[in-house]
């Protein structure tokens, strides 16, 4: 049987990538900042999820990072969207809008 919690987790994970890219499109950020923003949206349950994802995005070439000294704590990794990343984000946003429209329509129809 389908576990609703599991499905929700899958959905969150699927859009997490899009959210991270979106946040970074508005300016460079380091993981803690990204987490703060994501926490409001309840997309992140545990912070640990973020780090493997960021590393993967960076390794695919969508993100780049630079080190910045912090006044309070270890040096921070500021992530930045690369050109490929911006391109990729646009595509993702487009397909997301299409997907949401389609899904919404389906749900609406189901309700009637």
């Amino acid at each position, binding site marked *: 049987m389908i576990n609703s919690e599991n499905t929700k987790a899958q959905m969150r994970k699927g859009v997490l990538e899009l959210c991270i890219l979106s946040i970074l499109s508005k300016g460079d950020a380091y993981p803690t900042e990204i987490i703060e923003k994501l926490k409001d949206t309840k997309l992140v349950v545990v912070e*640990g999820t973020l*780090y493997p994802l960021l590393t993967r995005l960076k390794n*695919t070439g969508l993100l780049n990072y630079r080190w910045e000294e912090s006044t309070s704590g270890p*040096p921070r990794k500021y992530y930045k969207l690369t050109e490929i990343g911006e391109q990729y984000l646009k595509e993702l946003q487009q397909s997301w809008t299409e997907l949401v429209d389609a899904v919404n329509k389906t749900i609406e129809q189901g309700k009637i």
Partner: protein
Amino acid sequence: MNKTVTINISGIIFHIEEDAFEKLSKYLSTIKGYFSKTDGGNEIMGDIEARIAEMLQSKTSAVKQVVLMADVDSVIETMGKPEEFAGDSQTNSQPEEEDNSAEYATGEPVKKRMFRDPDNKTIGGVCSGIAAYFDVDVVWVRLAMFLLIFFGGVSLWVYIVLWIVIPEAKTTAEKLAMRGEKIDINNISRTVKEEAEQLKKRMQKYGNDIKNGDYSQPRNFFDKLADFLKDFFILFGKVFGRLVGLVLLVFGVVFLIGFIAAIFGIMVPGAKSEPHELLELIFTGRPYYSLGIFGAILLFCVPILMMFYGGIKLLFRIKYSNRWLNLSSGLLWLLGIILVVFVSVRTASDFAENGRVKNTVNIAQKDTLYLKVSDFKKSVPEMSDNEEEYTHYNRHGHRYIRINHHRDYVIANVGNTPMIGGYASLRIVQSNDDKFNLYVSKTAQGPERRFAMEQARNIEYKVTQTDSLLSFDDIFMAPFSEKFWAQDVELVLEVPVGKVIYLDKNISHFIHNVDNITNTYDGDMVGRRWIMTKKGLECIDCEGLEKDTDHDDFDGLPEPPQPPNPPTDLNVNVEDANVKIDKEGNIKVKSKNTEVEIGKNGIHVDKKDKDNKEK
């Protein structure tokens, strides 16, 4: 009051309570375990640690300097359990658009690890753990363990080591990992291959980093090099660690079996083996002996068990280190060395000084001396009744201790006094004057010179001369009390030039490397007469022997004529006749038909056959 530990996370120093530290370090190592297979796992680890440092920093202040358990708990809660954020993605079986999506979805079943099974245990759960690891029925493992007890108790040691090395499966995750994927050769070789692949990738990446001059990180080249070396050795260790582990384990088992067998040979009561008695005699009294054995056991056993321990850890990838165990085994080994050195020094000092007593035996000068060994039974008339108890007998039927080829020692009761007997040896050299000279040199060793001298003086040894016959005791005796003082007797016979000696056949084990001009072996020298020339001893009656230097071919040659043996009657047998010369010098010649007697009374002829007429 709680003890705190100082730790460094991402370059920030924290004081953390001990229990909190343990929890945190366990948490971090679990995460590390999850990401160790993922590409960029080290980077992820670094990020996570940096975040943890940040969070902990926000929880400490000038007033509250110490990180508490509660802080660690809350960090873990925020960060999430490793299976939540790493393992979770396993359920995502849908292929994603990107090629390397599998990187953060580890996509493999839980990796199998060796644990002790607490739910299924008889003693420590070792057998059931092994059974789970190799996917066999626990009954077989237990049976094997039980049977191995009879091979010198090997499995007892093995079991104890395994019990210490293998951690218990406490959490559910560990219990799952214990049963995990089936382990077989394919599986192991696959993981080894993967690790080798990882090593290759990392090397390439490092090469690229150098080429591209990737200095995006605020770290210098040497930091990166150090990192690289660390990674390299970890991965290298992973690939070869298993092999090394296997080798260590095999050697450990072999040494263990050998060592246990050796101990049993020495220690088991009733097994009066030669080394056992020899050791007992050499070490002063029981305590040193036992101490020495104990030290030797530690000295050999500890490294063997540690080989075992290390081998198992490497082979089954058990990441579990017991500092107490390492420390105590090191100390035990050190103790073993100290004991062995101490006992050796003590024992050596018991033999530090030599005592030598040299006597000249007056012998009557003759043209020919006949040398023979007197019967041992005569020299020690009363041997003890309990001889039969002894398991080892020498050729005289006495318990003996063999020290080397030429020196056997006998322990026997003469009357009620225990005596130690040993074989004396004889050297034959050229005399500086025109006399036969015989020297008896008695030696012994002891802790002090006076003591050694006394021991040497206590040695009893007899040489008797009857006319021209020199009769040697082959055994010297000395009073024996628990301890052996390396007593020895050596005789030197000086033979003047031009004089003859005859070596009786029974003297072969008594003479020792007697030089002669034909380089004849001691064993071939007996039963012959030898004349001392300026060059050395020369054989008078061994025709054919000189040419034959090869000892083994000697069998084929005819037996040389039997030399005369004057102190007793001399008998010569020729085909049909017998010639007899008795002590008084009377000569009798007997043949089939005639008997001729020549003596003080003149010549007397006795004719048996009437056809043969004689005057």
